[in-house]
């Protein structure tokens, strides 16, 4: 166990630090006044993730079998190339510039108390998440099971899969396969949750560097750790998304602030290097999660339009400046390379006109017409929403409206609020609660700003007693409401025994059945961790068949398949019998305490497996 843990832990820096570190070294050199150590340390992880994804895509296109040694070699070659470029570009120059005093606006040199505050926030953020995950760490969530099937498929076949459906995106699966191939850590183990937890924590840092740059304040960067990491640490999209395996959102929540960070710096500093990294990280996100990319697209459009609107008289000059930033050799080469990747190396499965038309237009379902205020409050958290609103109001007071910082902070929050509350106004046709999950990003940014500004204003206040009471009340509310969900971390009941019994029954069937002839139907409604069943067979994404949640069988817009439901609910009816003969199902896996009991009355079935939790029936 210790050796396995050691291998897994060593894989983290090799996969998620080394490539990004060498990439940033090649771009910025060892010391660069443009970017601080702190920012580079944070950006190393997302840059590594994107680099490794691109490497795997390239290897697959070259029909090279994906294996541990191949990946180790590729990552090393990539890193060495980065280092050679660094030597070539910077060695002489850095020595010459070593004597010069750096004129660095570093918003990440934290004071003693700021650093202590960040360390306490990080300790709480990691402690709360770890405590919560310790009760859910056995792989059990439905989404993670679905995703890990594809990661296992990559490991087994040595190549990237053809999904045959737009629901999955390759960037959600490659990194887990790479971890498995390099460390040997089982996909049906702790590894996927640990990788997601790592991305979740790096996401907190990413939002902090964005806050630090936009508001040009180490205080606000420090406060971002508290607002993002400690408040609502369990609720979606935090620890619950980590244990729930909502892979795309977790990675998207890390990459979106990174993309906006590069964009902000490219535009505000007129810097083509940051423009190139903006393109690089945007395309990385496109390969990872369609919804996050869609949200990012709207966010960027809103930022650009607001900035142009607020600087209407200089709009053409600003656009001309943007062209000057992006029409330089470095961004053009990156854009060319990534277009080449898109067209010739790997095109994401969702990249087609029908997917675009499905996501845009008038809301077509009740779940897409927008969230009420209460739903938005539940989604973002009351404390974060109130602090965000405070920050939103203070923006108008503190910042010059013609500056980029105003457009970035305001437009990002405004467009996401609109997309969540009134999607029809923006021609958005996707489930509103899924958009609402992204609200925490801009609201955390505004909340950190709002809280710091609020504290500053009260410090200046002449009525000390009154201001102290108000401040105390606000902080009391923020901490009690924002940390109420953390109590869940200590209340959850682990369902390890149920999960293990589910896996045992799956292994029993996988060892004994001929999947070319035998068809298994399992009950998703009443069996815990059942979505991991498919990893024991690795025959097909839809094998074994599954009785889904009952609401899924009712759709007024189109007829749905109902056999998986009827074969469990009415196995002896004419419809049930017809379904069995049509689907070829001859094994049914049920919760022993529920349908498992009722199935014993049917003479067509024999009970071949019986545990406290699972019963398996064979159709005669």
């Amino acid at each position: 166990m210790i050796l396995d843990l050691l291998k897994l832990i060593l894989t983290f820096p090799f996969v998620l630090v080394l490539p990004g570190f060498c990439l940033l070294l090649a771009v910025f050199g060892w010391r660069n006044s443009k970017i601080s150590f702190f920012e580079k340390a944070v950006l190393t992880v997302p840059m590594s993730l994107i680099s490794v994804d691109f490497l795997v895509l390239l290897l697959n296109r070259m029909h090279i079998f994906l294996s541990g040694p191949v990946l180790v070699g590729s990552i090393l070659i990539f890193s060495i190339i980065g280092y050679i470029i660094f030597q070539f570009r910077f060695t002489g120059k850095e020595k010459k510039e070593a004597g010069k005093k750096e004129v660095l606006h570093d918003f990440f040199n934290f004071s003693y108390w700021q650093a202590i505050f960040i360390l306490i926030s990080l300790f709480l953020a990691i402690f709360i998440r770890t405590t919560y995950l310790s009760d859910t760490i056995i792989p059990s969530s439905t989404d993670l099971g679905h995703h890990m099937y594809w990661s296992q498929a990559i490991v087994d076949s040595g190549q990237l899969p053809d999904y045959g459906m737009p629901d999955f995106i390759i960037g959600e699966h490659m990194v887990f396969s790479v971890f498995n191939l390099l460390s040997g850590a089982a996909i049906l183990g702790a590894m996927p949750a640990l990788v997601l937890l790592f991305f979740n924590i790096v996401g907190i840092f990413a939002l902090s560097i964005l806050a630090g740059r936009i508001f040009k304040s180490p205080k606000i960067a420090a406060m971002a750790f508290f607002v993002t990491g400690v408040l609502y640490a369990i609720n979606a999209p935090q620890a619950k998304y980590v244990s729930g395996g909502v892979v795309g959102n977790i990675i998207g929540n890390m990459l979106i602030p990174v993309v906006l960070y590069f964009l902000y710096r490219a535009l505000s500093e007129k810097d083509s290097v940051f423009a190139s990294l903006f393109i690089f990280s945007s395309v990385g996100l496109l390969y990872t999660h369609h919804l996050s990319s869609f949200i990012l697209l709207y966010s960027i459009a809103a930022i650009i339009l607001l900035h142009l609107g607020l600087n209407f008289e200089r709009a053409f000059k600003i656009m001309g400046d943007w062209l000057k930033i992006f029409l330089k050799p470095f961004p053009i080469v990156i854009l060319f390379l990534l277009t080449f990747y898109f067209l010739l190396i790997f095109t994401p499965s969702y990249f087609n006109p029908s997917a675009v038309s499905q996501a845009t237009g008038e809301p077509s379902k009740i779940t897409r017409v927008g969230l009420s205020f209460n739903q938005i409050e539940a989604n973002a958290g009351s404390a974060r929403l109130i602090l965000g609103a405070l920050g939103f109001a203070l923006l108008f007071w503190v910042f010059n409206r013609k500056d980029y910082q105003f457009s970035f902070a305001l437009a990002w929050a405004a467009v996401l609020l609109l997309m969540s509350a009134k999607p029809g106004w923006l021609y958005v046709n996707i489930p509103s609660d899924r958009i609402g999950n992204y609200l925490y990003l801009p609201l955390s940014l505004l909340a950190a700003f709002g809280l710091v500004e609020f504290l500053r204003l009260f410090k200046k206040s002449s009525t000390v007693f009154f201001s102290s009471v108000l401040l105390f009340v606000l902080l009391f509310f923020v901490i009690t409401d924002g940390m109420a969900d953390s109590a869940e971390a200590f209340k959850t009941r682990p369902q390890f025994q149920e999960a293990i019994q589910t896996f045992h029954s799956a292994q029993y069937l996988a060892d004994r059945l001929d999947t070319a002839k035998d068809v298994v139907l399992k009950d998703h409604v009443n069996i815990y961790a059942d979505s991991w069943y498919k990893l024991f067979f690795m025959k097909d994404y839809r094998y074994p068949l599954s009785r889904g949640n009952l609401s899924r069988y009712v759709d007024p817009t189109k007829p749905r398949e109902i056999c998986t439901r009827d074969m469990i609910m009415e196995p002896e009816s004419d419809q049930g019998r017809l379904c069995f003969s049509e689907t070829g199902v001859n094994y049914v896996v049920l919760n022993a305490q529920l349908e498992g009991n009722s199935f014993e009355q049917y003479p067509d079935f024999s009970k071949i497996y019986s545990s406290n939790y699972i019963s398996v029936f064979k159709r005669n």
Partner: protein
Amino acid sequence: MALRNPSLREGREEKAELWKIMSSKIIVIATIILLLVSFSVLFVVETKNHDLDYKKSWSVAYFENPRDLPEAAASLQAGDSLDFAIENHEGEKMKYSYEILADGKKIAEGQVEIEAGETRQVAPLFDLERKNDARVSLEISAKDLKYRIYKNLK
């Protein structure tokens, strides 16, 4: 008083400056340590709990060869497999009693003692005279546990 002393004040300012330079490195290193601890704890918790026996209490009985179970009572013959297995994950040594029933009538019985975490395979003797029976059941019990597996014959 101390701050009025220029050398002390300068020393304090130098310290503050040094801290500012070092703070981001300390935060990154502290995060790495916190993550190492977190990952180690979670990995150990998962690995231990992934074990069939660790802090668990359950048993399971199953036919060894579900694909080869006899289909019809009339065609039942010696060599047909009704071999079954019992796994003990109760956390202690258990004595399991089993009864073989043909349409509810006991035709054989036995007992097996199984160590914690172990599996015992049983190959029951089958009464070939009873060819009209529709259901052959295996009822396994231990303490307050009861499991049943059966084969319905045509």
